[in-house]
């Protein structure tokens, strides 16, 4: 083991370095200059994102606890991009007076959760996986409770941390059983030993429930809506996009790597859960007025769509998931970007408040519409491609009925996405949200999303690259 080999961990190391620099910078800057930390953080993070793209070695460290393969790097880069957008979008919010005294911690916490996810992604054993999971969750709870002036924020925080502790307890119980049965916590040792029996099923489902909690799959999703609504908008966007995306990827990897011998079992589990998730998520989303809550349910149902990639349990599914993650980042962050701007400028978060938005803020409305269409899977924006490939992945394994249910759910989801479009474009309002000018960072954040939405689908190179890596996994 030499220092060179630590380059394998550069994503994590750079991130921790960024967090530390911000922490140190906070200590050594005066109150007047603190505002610069925001710019610094974004620049640093952008640098980190760029560094992520440098070609790097792949391999295994720490006796198998940490592995990195090209696909991991891609996923980490995607998450980096997403987080960068979140950071850019949150700039306007962090600027406000109420956050003036603690925003550097926001960056530190956010980055540490990202580090947690990276470790999860690269984990080679259950211990690292668990540590990453907790690292990705505990600071997140603090972030959810970040807004100290809103009781909902605290409520969200406590709901998140307690339910996550509960779910990790259950998951750990499952892991302990797996350990007991197969004698290892290392993935590579487990998968050959795995066999089908009652206790394995029990252990698997306990474990799966923990992951499902993280991805907010029905019936383990109930925390999500409250937490999403309670959290500050930017944290919600992070939660619903980055956190969820990472978790889906990891779930797939683990199912793929650890449980291939019982794929019969988990495909059925995933099938049931996917149907429930899509359907229930949609049913709840229909009724929502608060947009954050609305998007929470929408992203629950989106998680169900992710499962279509999971269920295939093959390279195609893996590619589709990673690809959709990228698409989903642009789409959901596009939506959240708009919601965040409007929430910050006018404090309005309800659907009715958006009535007539197109007449006052056309660009925002268009962005929102594109992003929503992408979520609904309407061409020519990227979501269409993402969904199509997910469906293809599931269809490849013969899950046609599931695909059918999914496509029908797409229609339901289209219904409520169109409700927002309707509010913005069709409904008339006596008191529309007035026109406001957005600052540079806001525009940048939304601009990246739009560019992503438009380009990702047509630039088939992205898919091809992911596919190449996934098929070489």
């Amino acid at each position: 083991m030499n220092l060179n080999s630590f380059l394998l961990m550069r994503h994590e190391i750079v991130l921790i370095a960024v967090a530390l620099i911000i922490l140190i910078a906070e200590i050594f800057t005066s109150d007047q200059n603190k505002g610069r930390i925001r710019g610094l953080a974004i620049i640093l993070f952008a640098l980190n994102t760029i560094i992520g793209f440098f070609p790097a070695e792949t391999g295994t460290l720490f006796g198998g606890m940490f592995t990195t393969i090209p696909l991991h790097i891609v996923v980490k880069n995607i998450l980096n991009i997403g987080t960068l957008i979140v950071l850019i979008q949150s700039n306007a919010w962090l600027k406000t007076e109420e956050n003036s005294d603690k925003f550097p911690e926001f960056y530190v916490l956010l980055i540490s959760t990202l580090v947690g996810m990276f470790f999860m992604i690269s984990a080679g054993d259950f211990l690292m996986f668990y540590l990453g999971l907790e690292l990705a969750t505990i600071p997140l709870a603090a972030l959810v409770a970040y807004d100290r002036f809103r009781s909902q924020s605290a409520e969200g925080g406590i709901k998140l941390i307690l339910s996550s502790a509960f779910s990790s307890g259950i998951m750990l119980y499952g892991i302990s059983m797996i350990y007991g049965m197969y004698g290892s916590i290392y993935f590579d040792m487990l998968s050959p030993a795995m066999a089908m029996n009652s206790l394995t099923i029990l252990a698997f489902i306990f474990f799966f429930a923990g992951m499902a909690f993280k991805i907010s799959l029905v019936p383990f999703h109930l925390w999500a809506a409250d937490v999403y609504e309670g959290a500050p908008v930017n944290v919600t966007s992070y939660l619903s996009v980055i956190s969820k995306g990472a978790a889906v990827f990891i779930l797939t990897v683990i199912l793929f790597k650890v449980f291939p011998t019982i794929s019969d079992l988990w495909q059925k589990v995933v099938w049931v859960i996917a149907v429930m998730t899509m359907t229930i998520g949609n049913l709840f989303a229909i009724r929502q007025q608060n947009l954050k809550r609305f998007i929470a349910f929408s992203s629950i149902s989106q998680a169900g769509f992710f499962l279509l990639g999971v269920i295939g349990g093959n390279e195609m599914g893996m590619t589709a998931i990673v690809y959709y993650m990228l698409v989903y980042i642009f789409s959901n962050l596009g939506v959240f970007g708009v919601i965040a701007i409007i929430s910050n400028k006018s404090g309005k978060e309800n659907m009715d408040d958006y009535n007539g938005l197109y007449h006052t803020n056309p660009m925002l409305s268009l962005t929102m519409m594109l992003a929503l269409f992408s979520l609904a899977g309407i061409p020519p924006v990227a979501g269409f491609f993402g969904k199509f490939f997910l469906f293809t992945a599931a269809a490849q394994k013969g899950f046609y009925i599931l695909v059918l249910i999914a496509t029908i759910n797409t229609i339901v989801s289209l219904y409520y996405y169109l409700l927002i479009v309707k509010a913005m474009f069709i409904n008339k309002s006596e008191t529309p949200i007035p026109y406001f000018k957005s600052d540079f960072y806001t525009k940048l954040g939304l601009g990246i999303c739009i560019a992503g939405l438009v380009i990702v689908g047509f630039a088939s190179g992205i898919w091809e690259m992911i596919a190449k890596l996934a098929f070489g996994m």
Partner: protein
Amino acid sequence: MGILSFLVLIPTITIIAILFTNDKKQARLVSAIGTGIQLVLAGVLVWMYLTERSAGNTAAMLFTQDFMWYPNLNIHYAVGVDGISVAMIALTAVVLFAGIFASWEVEFLNREFFISLILLSGGVFGFFISLDLFTMFLFYELAVIPMYLLIGIWGTGPKEYSAMKLTLMLMGGSALLLVGLLGIYMNSAPAGQPLTFNLLEIAKVTIPIEAQRLFFPLTFVGFGVLGALFPLHTWSPDGHASAPTAVSMLHAGVLMKLGGYGCFRVAMYLMPEAAHEMAWIFIILTTISVVYGAYGAIVQKDLKYINAYSSVSHCGLVIFALLMMNKTSMDGAILQMISHGLMTALFFALIGMIYGRTHTRNIYEMGGLMKVIPFLSVVYVIAGLASLGLPGLSGFVAEMTVFVGAFQHADTFHRVATIIVTTSIVVTAVYILRVVGILLLGPIKNEEFNHFKDAKWFEKLSTITLLVMIAAIGLAPLWLSNMIQHSLIPIIQKLAVTTGI
């Protein structure tokens, strides 16, 4: 770059150009120019096609282009046309052109209106030129979705409800369709060969019959929803009633044809065995559809509802004819698509223009319009006559081809269905004449009507364009029919060979 890609490119460029316009006048001018170019292009395409064919080129698809898009999934951007697509493209260009002029004086958000309209048409063009099921599906959805905004923003009446219903039902159809297409894709090549979305490639293999039984209904119904297949047609009356003029025109005139086109081009062509097996179900449904739509139209009060039900009837005839699966009936189906596209577009244009003057679409609140707006009224009568199948206008050609074709089946089931369908021509006459009688003829119902101005230049341009096409097809159908029949040969062969007929 081949001529076909221009069909998609020009709408795109037009949309971008509209973005840079400042006001209503510029926007509509740009739209008119863009669609005008598109019309010319379509004309050139027809000419090129005929020249190429007469030069002896017998390839199934002409002007093909093929770019690899997603190598990993073997998705291509593959375009090509045969006589049928050429005809449909020409139809689209005509209706679009007329539509732009019919909506010359849209009241607000003009740029957005034209952009959405042209976007829709871009989807339609893309659909008709696609040889790759993936791009076909992409364009298909692209064509459907602008409808929501178009109806929702510029519509009338319960527009939000109608827009939502229409969008959801059509997307519901595309949900089924998507599964069907995926199923086709998964069975598109023998084991070990790369899967493909390419229509012509898939046509070379025989999809296993079990898969066909599963995916044929999905695909067929998926397209059928857009083709107003009974009982999934109910988006049509509401949707059309609420849509603004040009949208109704384009939607009923062109978009609904995507359904029929897809039905035979994808569902029946690729899965002939299942098509034969299940045809009877759909024949029953479409037979109902034809008669039912016509009867439904008789008692409607709203002009657009009448036309919408009439569309249900006529589009039912399209699918009915397709299911008869011989060259003549399918030729008739396509002629009917074109004919119905033109005349229903004309109808909707006229209804829009009449509505613009009377501000009502309730026929009982109108009367004697012939006196005050003779031009529009006469055109309406002609459109009506076309609709009820008067010789010399396009409807007759299509219907007769369908009937004769459908009658070529020797068994009682097909024959009874055909006869039932044939009766619709009487019912059609009833409702058309009812409307003409109440709406146009008779004494002037309302004093205010006397102040109406007859058609303005753009209205005349719009209607005459369509009228000329209707009459042209009605008077000289042979070249069109031959063009279509020639292109149907591979499809018929596939349908026949696989069943040993």
